[in-house]
């Protein structure tokens, strides 16, 4: 038995999730080292890394929700629209209705939950294709946000701006500038929220019954049903949580940009899906890891930084790079899984 195991390729001994996670982390570090080598000092400063986090905290949250949904074998492409809708609603509430912070947070969570509720019901209980449901959801959210408010405006609320400008210093990571003044490295509140959610989701997915049932449903619906898992409820919950996370992400996004516009978070669903896939979540379900998703977001934004740093600042290069990266990883996944299947046989 043992000899047989030794003979078989390394693929068979590592679980799908860990294999894809390992690929992601290795590629991220290679990419970061490449960035340091070819683009010099910028990437060596810790603040550069924290800026990547600051700029992408909302993306991290949506990508986590996306991974969760993808692990159960479904998909949700409405997240970008929901982020735009939530940020528009909150900004309008804060600015035109003299709203307070708690009210706006409640709105964000409420809109997100409502979205998750409706889409989850349609997908899980009415058995409609998730892509169609969330495609309609995306268009609905985009349309609604222009109905709520069309023009671009900055949120003027003082409390909100105080929250927006709160910087949390990271000890020991600062740098000394040319004048010899020590500048501490900082992260925004959104990053703390995002990392907190990542940790919570990681724990839920790894060590709770609910988390394991997400994997079971995504891996094989029929066997999950045989195990006594309520498949429909599990799918519903995945969509509900994804909607909630999209709502929170909308607020975090607003906290980062501080302005409302119908074009907010354009294409974020795409970035979220791309990060999840790069992070080793399989589209077929049952395979995925939240830590991988975090690294997926980091890889994606690192390559964006590299592209814009290389002087290809034109907007179209970003789209092409993300798409080609997504393509690359999809093909890698497909090939790796085919190899593994062959090795197992």
């Amino acid at each position: 038995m043992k000899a047989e195991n030794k003979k078989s390729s390394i693929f068979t001994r590592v679980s799908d999730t860990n294999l894809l996670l390992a690929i992601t982390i290795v590629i991220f570090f290679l990419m970061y080292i490449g960035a340091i080598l070819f683009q010099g000092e910028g990437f060596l400063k810790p603040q550069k890394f924290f800026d990547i986090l600051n700029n992408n905290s909302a993306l991290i949250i949506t990508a986590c929700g996306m991974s969760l949904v993808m692990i159960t074998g479904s998909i949700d492409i409405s997240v970008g629209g929901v982020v735009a809708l939530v940020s528009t609603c909150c900004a309008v509430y804060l600015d035109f209705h003299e709203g307070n912070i708690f009210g706006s947070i409640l709105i964000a969570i409420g809109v997100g939950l409502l979205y998750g509720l409706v889409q989850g019901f349609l997908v899980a209980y009415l058995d409609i294709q998730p892509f169609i449901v969330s495609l309609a959801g995306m268009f609905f959210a985009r349309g609604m946000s222009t109905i709520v408010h069309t023009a671009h405006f900055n949120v003027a609320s003082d409390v909100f701006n105080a929250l927006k400008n709160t910087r949390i210093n990271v000890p020991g990571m600062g740098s000394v500038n040319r004048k010899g003044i020590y500048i501490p490295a900082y992260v925004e509140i959104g990053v703390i929220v995002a990392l907190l959610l990542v940790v919570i989701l990681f724990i839920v997915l790894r060590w709770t019954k609910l988390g394991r049932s997400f994997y079971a449903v995504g891996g094989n619906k029929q066997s999950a049903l045989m195990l006594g898992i309520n498949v429909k409820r599990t799918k519903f919950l995945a969509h509900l949580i994804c909607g909630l996370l999209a709502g929170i992400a909308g607020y975090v996004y607003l906290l980062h940009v501080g302005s409302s516009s119908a074009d907010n978070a354009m294409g974020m669903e795409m970035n979220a899906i791309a990060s999840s896939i790069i992070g080793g979540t399989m589209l077929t379900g049952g395979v995925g890891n939240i830590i991988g998703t975090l690294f997926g977001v980091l890889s994606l934004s690192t390559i964006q930084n590299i592209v814009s740093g290389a002087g290809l600042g034109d907007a179209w290069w970003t789209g092409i790079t993300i798409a080609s990266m997504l393509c690359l990883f999809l093909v890698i996944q497909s090939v790796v899984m085919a190899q593994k299947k062959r090795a197992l046989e």
Partner: protein
Amino acid sequence: MSAKKKIKTGGIWKKIVGNQMFIPVLAILILVIVNLIKDPSFFVVTMGLNNDGFPVLSGSLISILDNGSELAILAIGMTLVTAASGGQDISVGATIAVAGSAMLRVLCGDNPRPTATQAPVILAFLVACLVGMLCGAFNGALVSAFKIQPMVATLILFTAGRSIAAWINNNELPIVPDPKFAWFAGCIPGIPIPTSVFIAAACIVAIMLVLKFTNLGLYTQAVGINENSSRLNGINPTFIKFLSFVILGLCVAVAALIKVSRISTINYSVIAKDIEMDAILAVALGGNALSGGKFNMWASILGAYIIQFLTTTLYRFKVDSEARPAYKAVVVILLVVSSAPVVRNYFSQLTKRFTSAKKEVA
């Protein structure tokens, strides 16, 4: 006797409701009635003169036929893709931008403001067809060879497409100098009906001939219903799926010709925006299962014109163009919910219970 009759009428009712054409025809009826109540002048078709002084037909119905032609052409390809792969291509809008951009690049050359076209239109169109088919082949290869879900595989071009389109022309917006180029979407002098209607009709006739005289339709349905058993029957599912995407690419190129011809130039971020949603909606409205398998080409094409009918109606109701997707999304959701098997079963059981309760009372 009366009971027998009742059952018979019940059967006819079921036949009508169960027919694939029921939803599209019902949708048309609802739209017609809404428009009749709101403003009967919607249906007036008049003979007027266009800007060049030639007689043309004008009116909302003509504009539906005219503007719906791209959608009808796309619906042809989308139906095949849906039937074969059980998924949809969401990159059609972006690939229209790519094909249109390639066409303009050939027509105008390096100079975005040429005084004369640099190449014959037919050559530009062939290049666009090639580009469209290449995009289709790319999607098709990902779906058929690498077994990636169609919607995710096409998500790649959905993101990159408009960027690639801008890159082809160095982000310039070339203008075709030849006024004849506008004929493909507008009217050829002397013919009162827009050319785009004829192009759409030609495409419809072509696909009908193909479906009638080749095994394409049968094979596509076989692959969509059960890939493994179709493979055991000697059909190559990989090739059929690939082919359906390539055909869609060809449809995209024809649609791009009309779209570009409408304004004689291109706007990369706006051209054919949200058209993928409309094309999928057309297939769904036609009563075709979005999970693949059997399809009805006529129903899809009718669906496409219904979508255009809806768009024109929304336009007449002065709905903001940015907000229009929200209304359409509601229609999609209502449609998919009403056609979901779970809902249908629930209602059929409900009516059964209702009728049996009625019988007991009697």
